[in-house]
């Protein structure tokens, strides 16, 4: 009987396994100087993942943490806008690609920095036009891996990853980045969001991804004129409890959160005295306590 696959040692020189291992090793080396890696996620779109990521980054950076943000939403990147680094040119050195730098020294990597203009969608060159969509997903995974590995992040206390909507995104990221510390789940107090988020939470659990807790965004409307808070969506009861997650905070709706984000200025820093900023700081505090239980700045 001729030799079978497993009888042959090595890979006959295609060197693919060795390259995959080498690539994993480079990712590990890069991530070794990043103390904590946390994904901001939700099954649902438009619930405020990106704006919360930007504000969390700003609050922790203002407290002296060295923070990086990776915009893992390659098709709908918004972090560069929210952290005011759009249009920055990146520098290449022997250590890799240096991330854009936002206020408070926040280091940012985003596909937005590479796309031709405001209207350019993310497309990949493919040898055949049909291939373009077929391979989209694997090209995106490849690009995400490169952003993690080839960005000269430097020493970071925290790398926040802003995920695109969709339940499989967090498990997929955990495959790519095995030492991801966990995910922060974002929802809004609407029935449909809870339903979609519940499925995403379940999927993450079956994949063994650690979930730090739940943030309820747009929970109540803060009237900018009279300062009173009203309900935006209705629907009562603790969403966190229903999902079996730690409640991490309820962030009220405040139109200035959106207008600051659009100007690239983190709201929590620009309006520190509002109810929503207070809630954002409490959220950051709970995350910090979770990441550094021993206390201290880091």
């Amino acid at each position, binding site marked *: 009987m001729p030799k079978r696959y497993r009888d042959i040692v090595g890979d*006959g020189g295609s060197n693919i396994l060795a390259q995959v291992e080498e690539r994993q090793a480079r990712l590990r080396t890069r991530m070794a100087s990043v103390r904590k890696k946390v994904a901001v996620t939700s099954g649902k779109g438009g619930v405020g993942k990106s704006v919360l990521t930007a504000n969390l980054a700003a609050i922790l950076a203002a407290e002296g943490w060295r923070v990086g943000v990776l915009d893992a939403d390659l098709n709908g990147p918004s972090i560069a806008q929210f952290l005011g680094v759009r249009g920055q*040119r990146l520098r*290449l050195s022997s250590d890799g690609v240096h991330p854009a730098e936002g206020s408070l020294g926040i280091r940012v990597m985003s596909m937005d920095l*590479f*796309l031709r203009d405001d209207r350019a969608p993310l497309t990949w*060159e493919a040898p055949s036009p049909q291939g373009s969509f077929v391979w989209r997903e694997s090209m995106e995974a490849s690009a995400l891996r*490169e*952003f993690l590995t*080839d960005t000269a992040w430097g020493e970071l206390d925290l790398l926040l990853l802003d995920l695109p909507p969709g339940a499989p995104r967090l498990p997929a990221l955990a495959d790519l980045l095995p030492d991801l510390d966990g995910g922060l789940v974002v929802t809004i107090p609407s029935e449909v969001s809870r339903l979609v988020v519940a499925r995403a939470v379940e999927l993450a659990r079956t994949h063994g991804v650690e979930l730090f807790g739940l943030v309820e965004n747009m929970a109540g409307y803060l009237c900018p004129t009279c300062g009173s808070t009203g309900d935006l969506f209705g629907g009562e009861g603790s969403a966190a409890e229903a999902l079996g997650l730690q409640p991490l905070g309820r962030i009220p709706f405040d139109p200035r959160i959106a207008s600051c984000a659009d100007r690239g200025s983190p709201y929590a820093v620009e309006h520190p005295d509002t109810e929503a900023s207070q809630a954002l700081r409490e959220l950051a505090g709970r995350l910090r306590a979770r990441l550094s239980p021993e206390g201290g700045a880091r």
Partner: protein
Amino acid sequence: MKFLCVGCDEPMGVRSVEGPDLGSVSVTFGCPVCGHQVSLLTNPAETQLVRSLGVKIGGGSPGGPLETVRTALGEQREGALDVKDEAGLVWTAAAEGRLQRLPPIARPMARMAIARYARERGLTTVTPELMDEYRSRGGF
């Protein structure tokens, strides 16, 4: 994927890798005992599958940081990631990407020739347009 020389019952080894050329890679394997050779010719989908894994058949020099992003992005912002060579000449990310699509052995020569062409014209930046111009004048 491994290749076995059936006559000798010996695993074959990679002898050479060429491409990608029009989306196809040719990988030649040879038997260390009898010298028999076979070539594996990939179709564009297979080439792209391997590429999307972030690896190259047969190994070879890594293409530098953000290789996929620099070389495979459809519409790329000019100047997002410009590379300056030793002589201070700037290769735009698109030009660099174009260069990376040449077979590895052809790159150093092409780079030198285009750099010379640019300097002779007093230019400080290499763009894909300049590369086209160079080629239309009989370069490469």
